[in-house]
């Protein structure tokens, strides 16, 4: 029977409340979102946080919204929402491609984009998706908000630039006209983690020449980071 080690539990009402709780309870306090990466690690005692700060009530982090030339996705947006969004599928087919093969529908009801990125498992699919799309991460802490590129965000396996007292609030993806993207994963069983996976995005000029191209790989341990992006593209 797998049971986590003892910890204290608190629910945040707002992002600021979550940040205050993280600050109050120190570096052994952790955010819990969907819990589908953190709880399995706690059950195996690979993680032993002293405090869990539950952000599932933070509706302010659960949104998908088009804002000028950016698509903004709240950190608490569930995999299921990402998969079912027709707007996302139209703008970024790579997201639906990846979401279809992330875990299974029941796990996708809980897991979030924020949790996926912060977990930074080398086999995490959305990390590659965000790399390839040139996404930005909006992170908030006691001293305010900062914006990180995915290169700045990723620090290697299970490590990100999000500090112990910070919350990942949203991911912003630049919308490019005349663009396309896709994701393909090799897995042993349906819903399994990737043996390896690849994502790619292209955008074109009016005359059809490629102006930007990026390729990302999942679970192959390139440079110890989650994915590799090559850009800009050959013209």
């Amino acid at each position: 029977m797998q049971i986590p080690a003892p910890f204290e539990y608190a629910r945040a009402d707002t992002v600021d409340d979550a940040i205050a709780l993280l600050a109050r309870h120190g570096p052994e306090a952790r955010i819990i979102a969907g819990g589908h990466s953190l709880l399995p690690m706690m059950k195996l005692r690979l993680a032993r946080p002293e405090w869990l700060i539950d952000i599932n009530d933070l509706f302010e982090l659960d949104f998908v919204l088009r804002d000028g030339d950016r698509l903004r996705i709240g950190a608490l947006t569930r995999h299921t929402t990402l998969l079912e969004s027709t707007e996302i599928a139209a703008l970024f087919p790579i997201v639906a491609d990846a979401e279809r093969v992330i875990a299974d529908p029941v796990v996708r009801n809980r897991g979030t984009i924020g949790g996926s990125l912060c977990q930074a498992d080398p086999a995490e699919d959305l990390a590659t998706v965000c790399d390839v799309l040139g996404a930005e991460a909006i992170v908030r802490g006691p001293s305010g908000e900062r914006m990180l590129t995915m290169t700045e965000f990723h620090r290697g396996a299970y490590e990100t630039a999000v500090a112990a007292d910070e919350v990942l609030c949203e991911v912003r993806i630049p919308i490019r006209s005349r663009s396309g993207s896709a994701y393909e994963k090799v897995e042993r069983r349906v819903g399994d983690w990737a043996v390896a996976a690849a994502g790619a995005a292209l955008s074109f000029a009016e005359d059809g020449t490629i102006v930007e191209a990026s390729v990302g790989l999942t679970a192959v341990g390139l440079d110890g980071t989650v994915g590799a992006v090559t850009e800009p593209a050959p013209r």
Partner: protein
Amino acid sequence: MQITMTVNGTDVTNEVEPRVLLVHYIRDVLRLTGTHWGCDTSNCGTCVVLLDGQPVKSCTVLAAMADGHAITTVEGLATGGTLDPVQQGFMEEHGLQCGFCTPGMMLTARALLDVNPHPDDAEIRRAISGQICRCTGYATIVRSVRWAADHPAGMTEADAAGGDPSALDDSAGTTTDPGGAAAEAAHAIPAAQTEPEEVTA
């Protein structure tokens, strides 16, 4: 900590340790043992319950996280002794053998039909793809869910007359009563607060 949630329409309040998983709270504290517990690793889906109407793997949710929310377990599928069409479908189409996966399968099926009353076979298969059945080979489960989709009001007299007349007759002694009146009584949530179980690691 104290948690309060609605389980199968009844409010329950208990003192639990924050580390208690929802599956253990449901089984060991509420004594609703229709929710099964299998792999413990979020893979098999036998622990699926509905959290605010959505299937979740209760081995990977803290009871504390369900505080203030509504849970439906298999014991809550039947209403007033009448089986849910999904339960009837599993009887009609032999959707179970050992029954270990069945509660989770039926709850996922119920949630699917609530949002998509006419799923095709591919949609049914996709919906249950996070749940493992070692017995049936899934074909009869898919047929069972399709039966429920085709019979949104459950078994009608015409069905009963046209089909196996003993199918719904307990006195024939050929059927079990997985969520009906007998099960409901056996699984009634104790009204009084239950003492939390000691969690041993």
